[in-house]
């Protein structure tokens, strides 16, 4: 009777034991010496195997880092946090890298941009662009078939209402796969802190742009003229931003006649002049929208309707009588940057 229980237990247990010992021996016999740091680095990596670092998967990158072939901050998707942890494992200091995310430089959705012909083919920007430069009148415009959406390994891009992709800033890791996927080259990686950018890529002449799209850049150069930091230069009918100089003041957004410059700040603060004002008129002169009025030597007023919250007066006021109100954290950010 007992043998009916014992024998099965012994045979399965015996099999398990034999396999266990066999595997243990094999593990010794076939042990591959792996640097323990590789495993540690692999643990802190995001594990998406996105390949943005240029190595085949996270394991490839981990091995390259340990072999000191790849930089410690080479993981684009992980950002500064992961770079810090890898730095600790490798015993090296890591400089703060600037995180970059994807910006879509086209606003010409179905309502804004004119079509050229009716396209009926593969639902892919890459395919559509091969047929006479795509179904849009603008040869720089977004085709809206979502090659970038499909390319994104982090589901950070979705197709917006008008057929223009929208980037989820929080999810975007700046891996740059969408940049490669876009046949038009209208997705750019810019610093995550950048709030103002040109929402157009057209280098065509004004007449051509105006025919094709209502929100296209016509290269008028008003933004370059008005920019207090001289961060914009016009070349090839296009305003080139120097993002190192740009302070995101938003004057270019306000001045642009076609609304081709995009402002990501949802609510900008308004200037408010306090009792410390000596009436020096510096703010009045500096204000690009002429929102400040007042007599000399008297406290000035701000016209809230006209104020665009650029903060020029705030920066220039000699007695620090101007405050920016209405947007939390804006002043702190400005002061921190200065």
């Amino acid at each position: 009777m007992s043998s009916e229980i014992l024998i099965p237990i012994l045979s399965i247990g015996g099999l398990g034991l034999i396999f266990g010992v066999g595997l243990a021996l094999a593990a010794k016999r076939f042990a591959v010496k792996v640097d323990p740091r590789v495993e540690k680095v692999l643990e802190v990596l995001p594990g998406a195997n996105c390949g943005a670092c240029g190595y085949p998967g996270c394991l490839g990158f981990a091995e390259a880092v340990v072999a000191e072939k790849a930089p410690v901050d080479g993981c684009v998707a992980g950002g500064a946090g992961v770079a810090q942890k890898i730095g600790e494992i490798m015993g090296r200091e890591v400089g703060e890298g600037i995180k970059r995310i994807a910006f879509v430089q086209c606003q010409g959705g179905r309502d804004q941009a004119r079509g050229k012909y009716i396209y009926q083919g593969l639902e892919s920007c890459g395919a559509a662009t091969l047929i006479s430069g795509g179904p849009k009148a603008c040869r720089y415009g977004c085709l809206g078939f979502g090659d970038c959406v499909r390319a994104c390994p982090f589901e950070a891009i979705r197709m917006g209402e008008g057929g223009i992709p929208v980037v989820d800033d929080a999810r975007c890791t700046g891996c740059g796969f969408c940049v490669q996927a876009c046949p038009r080259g209208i997705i750019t990686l810019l610093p995550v802190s950048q709030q103002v950018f040109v929402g157009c890529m057209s280098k065509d002449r004004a007449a051509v742009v105006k025919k094709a799209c209502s929100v296209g850049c016509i290269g008028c150069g008003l933004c370059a003229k008005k920019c207090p930091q001289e961060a914009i230069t016009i070349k090839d009918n296009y305003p080139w931003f120097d993002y190192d100089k740009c302070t995101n003041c938003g004057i270019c957004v306000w001045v642009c006649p076609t609304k081709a410059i995009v402002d990501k700040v949802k609510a900008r603060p308004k200037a408010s002049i306090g009792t410390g004002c000596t009436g020096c008129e510096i703010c009045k002169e500096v204000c690009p929208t002429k929102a400040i009025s007042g007599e000399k030597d008297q406290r000035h007023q701000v016209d809230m309707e006209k104020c665009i919250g650029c903060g020029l007066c705030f920066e220039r006021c000699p007695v620090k009588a101007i405050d920016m109100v209405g947007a939390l954290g804006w002043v702190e950010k400005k002061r921190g940057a200065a």
Partner: protein
Amino acid sequence: MDIGHLLIIAVASILVNNFVLSRFLGLCPYIGVSKQLDSAIGMGMAVIFVMTMASLSTWIIYTYLLAPATSIWKVDLTYLRTISFILVIAALVQLVEMVLQKLVPTLYRSLGIYLPLITTNCAVLGVTVLNIDKRFGFVESVVQGFTAGVGFTLALVLMAGIREKLDLADIPKPLQGIPIAFIVAGIMSIAFLGFSGLVTE
């Protein structure tokens, strides 16, 4: 045991009783790994390898340990078939992984992700159990194991080829991705029904 008999086993398990499309085994990797042709081929090769090895080793375990127990110890051990086969397959896959990592690192890299996935794949267990159920001999078991893997690879590669094309097709939104893959799988399964009757077992 002649070549013709083995050939019939091969045709039967590749086409007529295809493990995925007729027996509905191993559907998880069939849907999961069939998005790209490259990875489908990688997975298919790993399955062929493991199925052959598993058929070989489980047949030995069954014929020389579980089956003779009745006559030697007067205890029927055949009900331990499933659990001991799982044990054998898991240990085998582990061993194969180690050996490959040491001796053929390139093959380990290309199969690497798929090998552990196969450990508890029902298609692998299925082929070993079927070997016993059909009272196959050693060579027959190995042939069935190998060709079942080939059949699995065939289904997987066909599916991957179709899905790569489907990616570019204009598919209604609710059907995009997995749903259309299931529909395709169903149609492929019906198509493979056309082979039934080719071989009578």
